[in-house]
């Protein structure tokens, strides 16, 4: 079980999907094969774009920090941002853009408040480096660290409803018990209130 399984399970058959920061289109390929979606990816890396094209998935070169201005309002059933929100310049602006372009939004992110991070920072006194956050502080694409609670607050501030929330740790779905402490990864389905 990984977060892609969770996302595939969230999306209905035949939906239109925009995957932001789609990497090599592994997720979109699964959604094509298993959910028959009409999918597109946005990616900035040339080698990843080439791999998407090889997989026959429609992909656009794009910089998420420049927003989604070229995508019309309501043009996708689902807009996905997988393991990327912590890397964009203005996460709140991108979230607003995502709910404009998509009727549903799926965001998954590493939960910075998970137990292992708390131990490494709180007791060890050093920035966490572990399986979930594998980068040194001085060389990381992650420029915003936030927690599950922070994300819930952000959604409330932006007038968004989290309609489903899945908590993961080491490839397993956790029961919703103290998720901000135990979940290393969180996957949320978000819609406008």
């Amino acid at each position, binding site marked *: 079980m990984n977060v892609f399984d969770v996302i595939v399970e969230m999306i209905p058959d035949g939906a239109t999907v925009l995957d932001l920061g789609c990497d090599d289109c592994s997720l979109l390929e699964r959604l*094509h094969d298993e959910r028959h979606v*009409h999918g*597109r990816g946005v990616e900035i890396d*040339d080698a990843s*774009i*080439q*791999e*998407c*094209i*090889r*997989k*026959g*998935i*429609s*992909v*656009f*070169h794009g910089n998420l920090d420049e927003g989604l201005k*070229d*995508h*019309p309002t309501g*043009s996708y059933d689902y807009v996905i941002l997988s393991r990327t929100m912590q890397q964009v310049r203005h996460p709140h602006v991108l979230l607003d853009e995502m709910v404009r372009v998509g009727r549903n939004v799926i965001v998954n992110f590493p939960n910075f408040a998970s137990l292992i991070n708390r131990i490494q920072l709180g007791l060890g006194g050093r920035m966490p480096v572990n399986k979930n956050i594998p980068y040194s502080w001085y060389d990381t694409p992650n420029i915003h660290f936030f927690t599950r609670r922070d994300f819930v607050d952000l959604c409330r501030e932006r007038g968004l409803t989290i309609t489903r929330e899945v908590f993961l740790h080491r490839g397993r779905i956790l029961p919703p018990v103290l998720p901000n402490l135990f979940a290393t990864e969180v996957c949320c389905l978000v819609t406008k209130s």
Partner: protein
Amino acid sequence: MGTRSIGVVQPQQVSLPLTEKGLLLESGATLPAVTVQYETYGRLSPTGDNAILVLHAFSGDAHAAGRHAEEDRYPGWWDDMIGPGKAFDTDRFFVVCSNVLGGCQGTTGPGSINPATGRHYALDFPVVTIGDMVDVQKRLLDILGIDRLYAVAGGSMGGMQALEWAVRYPQMVERAIVLASTSRLNSQGIAFNAVGRNAIMSDPAWNNGEYYGAPQPGHGLAIARMVGHITYLSSESMRQKFGRRLQNGRPGNLAFDDQFEVESYLAYQGEKFVDRFDANSYIYLTKAMDYYDLAGSWGGMEAAMRRVEGSLLVLSYSSDWLFPTEQSKEIVYALARAGKDVSFNEIQSPYGHDSFLLEASLQSELITAFLTGKKR
């Protein structure tokens, strides 16, 4: 896998079978006879499922790959991309390239003989459009027995034709590759074309287009080419290639007869062009580019794109200021809004508009992925 040259190739010519009325053009005018110059590389499969039509840019021709003779100094204009093991792999694909209508490299144009008068058409040649060029290519494919295209591909003016192909004959085009192009030229592009035409028309030798049998307006045509060349390069590529180096003297010499290297380069390009290109074709082909307007011809951009059935690959180049990335994005997002299968990348390249002819590696890899990847 290694790549090889296609070797020695033979240009071919064919006269289009036309009714007595001739070929009807978009302007409403007709041409009584049309000859098309073309080349082919590779073999057409028995089922006819491997044909790729390559479309040349403004000053290109049908000679896209290989050499006409072993001793030729230069191969065809896209030899880096077409050949055994290359992006347009002639071991697998049957590649066709023809000279455009209105051109001067074997296909009927203003320098051809008008059968009605027995003299060169000159300015009696009717205005031709990108759509007319595509129409002539379609008739060539009919003659060659090709009824569907694995892909069409072209850069710049060739990209306009590739786009027009995908919209005009959607049931024939399975894939279209549009490089450094646009669905309509911006006013900056039109302005540079106007300067080129003005340079030709102000050369006394132009003589209202009636110069055949005499030297052509070489000064005007060379200046037009010099201006064109500046627009094909980028500030950065010119700085790298020429800097401020002088041809002969030392800096500070201030000799009037000395030249910067960039000057002698442009002069050389201008002269070379006069030897192979017809001034009236320059005027007609730049007009065809200026008038091209996909949205205008098909009732809006999205209406045009809704016709498309194949998948598209659109590439732009970061330093191309003549056909900027924004114009490629217009094509891409219009296709996306119409729900079409389109992929887009902006390639980081210092070479300006000419990048699509020079930037072989990433461009070649993306095109290979597009041509050989999964079709959904």
